[in-house]
């Protein structure tokens, strides 16, 4: 089959010494960033993009480095969930439910390595899913014209808030703000400057890397400054790690759970608006209904650790499908990965598979390699990663801030960009306080120009007829999905979010 020969080519590209070292570095950094509370996968990748960019790495090596960070951060999120009952990132929230009780029972080591194995299974199966599903999606995507693409972008924004979104008005506001920022600069089609107010620095637009690093990384620093009292000291882990390797029997008993939840998580990842958080939530809930006969879930059941971890890592892999095949990411972290691709001058989408197959298959091979490395790294080195948790944020946050400055200054060497970044940092802080999601802003700045170009192309082709946007069955379908995807959370969002929160509170009420 040509898929396997392409994959073999991918391995040839990925298996050079430089790339292997980069994957190793990425896995290590990613796991650390995932483990540290306050530095999730989005932040981690965001800080490293400008660096990979300024170091002059080629397209494939940078992608390998940054996707390893992405996968590593998904692995690392569970460490603080299990040891401290603080999720390192949002998708790891469900892992707290059974992971922390297991750690309290003196089985922290087992919980950590079991969740490592579950993460591996989830990510491994999802990568296979990506290999088989993405080319199929590409075939559909090749039928898309500009009008369909415009509808697809709208769909992406409409569903970005996710099923668990509580306030769709704020999601819409954020998306419009992001797209608005993207329109700053010289208009690509007519060459007139827009919204530049005569400032020469703004003529080539606002660099989305500046926006991303400011919004994600700097706003985190401001949040820590604001809540200095109490939160900024190192976490004290009261539990001992204990026995490291889970017994073969334990792994065997969790295998059906891992397989089921990997499938479920993958689907949740591929669908727009679901993402890894929902993947792990649905996985946990399903397993609880299916196998929890003795009511042991929530009291340290190993299957309750395996389920959400396999689910969220599979969802992370699944989220790469729409990002690579359509060029439209469905979640925050994949939006940041899209920024990576755009910064490297690679436009993801159906043409990527035919024109630059080495990038695609090199990336997929890198995912496999990163996955094995993470499994190998996570079990023996778990002690090291748990020690990372002891670095207090008061030391760590200034480092994050300074590395952000270094990365952005490295791109352009201009103080103006640094000032813009600080502006975005303050904006991110205020918006986070007001519960406005930041991901739509990022996605808006990334996709705004492509969205406008497709709109204008579609209408120009049809001689100025705006009805061309809803002229084909395909685009009508996409528009209806967008409308449903936007309205559904208004009805169900509160219920679902409340349920996710309640689960967490229920458990912590018992623990504390």
């Amino acid at each position, binding site marked *: 089959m040509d898929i396997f020969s392409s994959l073999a080519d991918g391995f040839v590209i990925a298996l050079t010494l430089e790339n292997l070292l980069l994957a190793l570095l990425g896995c290590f950094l990613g796991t650390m960033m995932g483990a540290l509370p306050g530095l999730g996968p989005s932040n981690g990748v965001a800080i490293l993009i400008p660096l990979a960019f300024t170091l002059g790495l080629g397209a494939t090596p940078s992608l390998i480095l940054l996707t390893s960070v992405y996968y590593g951060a998904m692995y690392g999120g569970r460490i603080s969930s299990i040891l401290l009952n603080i999720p390192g990132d949002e998708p790891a929230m469900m892992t707290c439910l059974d992971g922390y009780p297991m750690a309290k029972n003196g089985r922290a080591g087992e919980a950590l390595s079991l969740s490592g194995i579950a993460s591996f299974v989830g990510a491994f199966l999802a990568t296979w899913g990506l290999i088989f599903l993405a080319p199929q999606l590409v075939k559909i995507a090749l039928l898309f014209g500009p009008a369909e693409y415009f509808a697809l972008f709208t769909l992406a924004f409409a569903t970005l808030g996710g099923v668990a979104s509580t306030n769709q008005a704020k999601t819409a506001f954020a998306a419009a703000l992001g797209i608005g920022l993207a329109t700053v600069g010289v208009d690509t089609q*007519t060459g007139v400057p827009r*919204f530049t107010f005569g400032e020469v620095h703004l003529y080539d637009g606002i660099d989305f890397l500046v926006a991303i690093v400011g919004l994600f990384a700097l706003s985190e620093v*401001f949040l820590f400054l604001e809540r200095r009292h109490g939160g900024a000291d190192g976490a004290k882990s009261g539990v001992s790690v204990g026995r490291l390797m889970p017994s073969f029997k334990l792994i065997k008993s969790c295998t059906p759970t891992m397989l089921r939840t990997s499938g479920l998580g993958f689907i949740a990842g591929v669908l727009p608006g679901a993402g890894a958080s929902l993947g792990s939530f649905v996985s946990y809930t399903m397993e609880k209904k299916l196998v929890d006969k003795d009511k042991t879930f929530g009291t340290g059941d190993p299957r309750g650790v395996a389920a959400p971890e396999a689910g969220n890592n599979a969802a992370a892999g699944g989220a790469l499908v729409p990002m690579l095949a359509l060029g439209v990411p469905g979640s925050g972290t994949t939006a940041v990965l899209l920024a990576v691709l755009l910064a490297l001058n690679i436009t993801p989408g159906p043409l990527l598979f035919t024109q630059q197959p080495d990038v695609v298959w090199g990336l997929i091979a890198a995912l496999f390699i990163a996955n094995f490395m993470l499994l190998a790294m996570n079990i023996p080195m778990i002690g090291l990663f748990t020690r990372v948790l002891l670095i207090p944020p008061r030391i760590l946050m200034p480092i994050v801030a300074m590395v952000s400055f270094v990365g952005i200054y490295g791109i352009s060497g201009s103080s103006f960009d640094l000032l813009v970044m600080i502006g975005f940092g303050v904006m991110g802080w205020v918006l986070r306080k007001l519960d406005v999601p930041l991901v739509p802003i990022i996605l808006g700045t990334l996709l705004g120009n492509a969205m406008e170009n497709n709109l204008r192309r579609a209408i120009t082709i049809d001689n100025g007829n705006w009805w061309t946007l809803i002229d084909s069955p395909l685009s009508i379908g996409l528009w209806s999905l967008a409308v449903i995807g936007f309205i559904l959370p208004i009805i169900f969002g509160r219920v679902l979010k409340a349920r996710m929160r309640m689960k967490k509170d229920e458990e912590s009420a018992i623990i504390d």
Partner: protein
Amino acid sequence: MSDRIFGLVGLILAFGYAWAALVIEESFLSDAVGPKAFPLIIAGVLALSSIVIIIKPDAAPEWPPFNRFVEVGAAVLVMILYSIFLPELGFVIATALAATYLTWRLGTRPISSVVSGCLTSFGIYAIFHLVLGLSLARGPLGF
């Protein structure tokens, strides 16, 4: 209340954006849509969502007390000064100063902050400049 103010700011932003879109000077060579239409649509979405936020505000977030605001404001000021003086002072000195300040304000004792700030600066300089060869701002002293 916070949301109402936020919505109002959003509305003003939407009108400002729409006005700025209307005064774009169109070139004589334009496509069927022109450079104004898309920004106007976006301004519409911005205005609509702001109105909804004003009508149906969420519960107000927990705003920090005044002194914490000053804290964040001071950090912003330090970062702005850092950005401006980075090319003048050079990377190592500027970064050591800024990192020391941030570490101190996040609750480290002054002497440890100076140590930690200097180590942060040297560490980043060593890794990114000496090992990875990234060009950082060069001050009067050459580093």
